[in-house]
């Protein structure tokens, strides 16, 4: 019901990173580099990554630590090196539902402003590139709910 008007909540992180935008962009898109930081497991990890870097191309991450295993996959939606990368993301974190991740890089001299946006969207919205956000309403609601509980 009402799926067409549904947009998901947004998680957004901002960071000033001490590196150039090209170098950061490559960390997100070159499999041999992706494998070195994208795994959430601590310690020794076998991480395999593949990336077909073109719009509609797929990437995948297979991360294995002991007998735990995590698989993440997705499709590139927009590639604008080094400023913007948009891709779908499906994995344990998203309960294996398709979500949309947008990486924006804004060069600031030797450093780069990084904005990472992770949205939970219905698939149709992803296909149509319809990514209207709705701000921090959930953060706001969660805060209100928490307050109400302590009162």
């Amino acid at each position, binding site marked *: *019901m009402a799926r067409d008007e549904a947009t*998901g*909540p947004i*998680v957004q992180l901002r960071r000033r990173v001490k590196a150039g935008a090209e*170098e950061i962009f490559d960390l997100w898109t070159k499999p041999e580099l992706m494998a070195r930081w994208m795994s959430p497991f601590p*310690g*020794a990890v076998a991480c395999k990554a593949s990336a077909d870097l073109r719009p509609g191309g797929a990437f995948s991450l297979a991360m294995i630590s002991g007998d735990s295993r995590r698989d993440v996959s997705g499709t590139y939606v927009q590639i604008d090196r080094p400023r913007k990368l948009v891709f779908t993301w499906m994995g344990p974190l998203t309960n294996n539902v398709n979500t949309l991740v947008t990486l924006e890089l804004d060069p600031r001299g030797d450093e780069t402003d990084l904005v990472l946006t992770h949205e939970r969207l219905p698939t149709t919205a992803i296909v149509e590139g319809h990514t209207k956000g709705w701000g921090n309403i*959930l953060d706001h609601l969660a805060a209100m709910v928490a307050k109400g509980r302590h009162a």
Partner: protein
Amino acid sequence: MTGIEARKEAASRTARLDAVFAALADPTRRAIIERLSRREARVTEVAEPFQMSLNAVSKHIRVLEASGVVERHRKGRDHILSINTRSLDEVDGWIGRTRRYWEERLDAMEGLLRELKKERKAGPRSGPRSGAKSRPKDRQHGS
């Protein structure tokens, strides 16, 4: 929990989350939730501030009830609406997990950037661009 049970649990959690997200995607419904988050209220009270028919507001309320965000109970002749905070907790949980996940990933990314910088300084022979594939023997940290 068996694998199948875990998958079922994850699937129903996903369905619940999706219903909550869809319910919250509408500005009128968000306004209703804000209203109810202050305190519970009668249907007519909830409808009051909106420039739409009681019927139209009732439709929104039904969507909120179906998603589990809003609950209805009766007090005498009145229908009282209130927020089911547990349904919002799940959404809040997803947001918290996702934020934590990416905070940690970005920390790791910055760690790797520092490592690559060191490698560039240390080994002009195995420069960063010459052979990214053959990185110096996978670092083998103990655990």
